[in-house]
């Protein structure tokens, strides 16, 4: 999907006006393995870019989630509480994690699809 941006910590975001949707990438879910639990913030919480906002726990690891951009949490994907495996089966669709109301600018460090693909292949 055009317009999807990626972080070095393997989150993705799409932006529509002043609102963004955030999740973790297909590469991240494949590395984590079966996701069993997510710890997510309450709506209304203000996040700074790169701030840790939650935890994704898989059968082999527990990893922090980082905000790709500054914003206020507008919504959390409630379906994940009952079906955390949506992160594995549909990371860019039903496995979305947060919706943010943007309060800051997008960082220049965010990558487009090609750059992120290169990043995951080379680690650069």
């Amino acid at each position, binding site marked *: 999907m055009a317009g999807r941006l990626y972080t070095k910590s393997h989150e993705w975001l799409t932006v529509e006006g002043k609102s963004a949707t955030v999740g973790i990438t297909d590469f991240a879910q494949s590395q984590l393995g079966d996701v*069993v*639990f997510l*710890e997510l913030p309450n709506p209304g919480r203000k996040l700074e870019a790169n701030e840790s906002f939650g*935890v994704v*726990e*898989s059968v082999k*690891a*527990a990893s*922090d989630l980082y905000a790709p951009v500054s914003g206020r949490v507008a919504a959390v994907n409630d379906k994940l509480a009952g079906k955390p495996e949506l992160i594995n089966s549909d990371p860019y669709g039903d496995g979305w994690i947060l919706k943010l109301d943007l309060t800051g600018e997008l960082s220049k460090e965010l990558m487009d699809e090609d750059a992120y693909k290169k990043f995951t292949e080379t680690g650069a």
Partner: protein
Amino acid sequence: MLAAIGVDSMEGLLVDIPESLRIPRLELPNGLSEFETMAQIASLAARNRAYPDRLTFRGGGVYRRFIPAAVAAVTSKPEFYTAYTPYQPEASQGTLQAIYEFQTLIAELTALDVANASLYDGATAVAEAAMMAHVHTGRNEVLVAGYLHPEYVEVLRGFGEGRGIKVKKGFEPTAKTAAVVFQQPDFLGLLVDAPDLTRRAHDVGALAIACVDPISLAILAPPGQYGADIAVGEGQQLGLSPSYGGPHVGFVACRKDLVRRLPGRLIGTSHDAEGRRGFVLTLTAREQHIRREKATSNICTNHSLCALAASVYMTYMGAEGMRHIAEVSFKRAHALADRLARLPGWELAFPDRQFLNEFPIRVPKAAVVNRKLARKGILGGLDVHRWFRELNGVLTFTCTEVNDPGALDELVEAVSR
């Protein structure tokens, strides 16, 4: 041997033991056989004065109770006795099953959803629960309400310091309070209004941590019933001897939605490829070897053998047995309180408060009372003035099932003279 470990003398080796506690000279002649040495040592040991259980009326966190022989019969089995938490845990199904049963018993006793494999003792259990509340709420203050065991408070402060947790005392939590911690019955033996303290915590969005006496739960409302979020406590009374203060066993139980904050080992059940029931380590991603510095706690072990003793004790006694000893202890303590309060100059320190089997009483001269009792081989009450300025002249006396009616007579007689 001293040279090999880098110490220059025997005194250097013993430097950590206070001089007053060392034996300066054993007065053993040279050249004795093993047999003769044993006889000499035995006669020296016979000069020790040990208070018999039935004449011990001091509690304050550690209690004498009858320990059925079944406890040692199980814990001394080499399969349990020598085992450390194994590195390939699922290979030791018996060890995991024993822990699972401990967890189940504690969860039932506290009426909460889940309990862990055990902690070191009551003090560290309080501190671990406070850290759970700190991480869960994102708040930095813990409010100690009423008479929580002063040594638990010290450990709580010690743990809290490194995590930026402030320990306050009082009954009014605020929006900064992560948890209200109270003890039921409290350190003096008095019952507190646990439902009210729990409500106060919840009204400001804090957690309620109940530090409970496991035997008392046979007759008191369990923490889960009045809505406490976390229950912790010291499990020594469940089949462990006082042993100079340890090793004992701590327990912690909580509501299901806090399980990812729960520290330490957690055992669950699953099924193997052939559909057979098996016991497995569960939710290990909470723990520090995976979560690193983000884990609630750095604890990764437990007191399994002590927890096993507690499991055997609870299973052997059963709900009825535990209720019976709780009631006997209650009756004896109340009979003793009535008799002591009638002595000239003696009065209950909190006459309007209820208690179970431990009670604070104001006496004319605490030290004199305990010296009189010691001369009769009786270990008297705990002088709590040592920790609480307002409790000058107050001793807390404890009765359990081991203090038979004759022992009560001896105690009253000794202080009446």
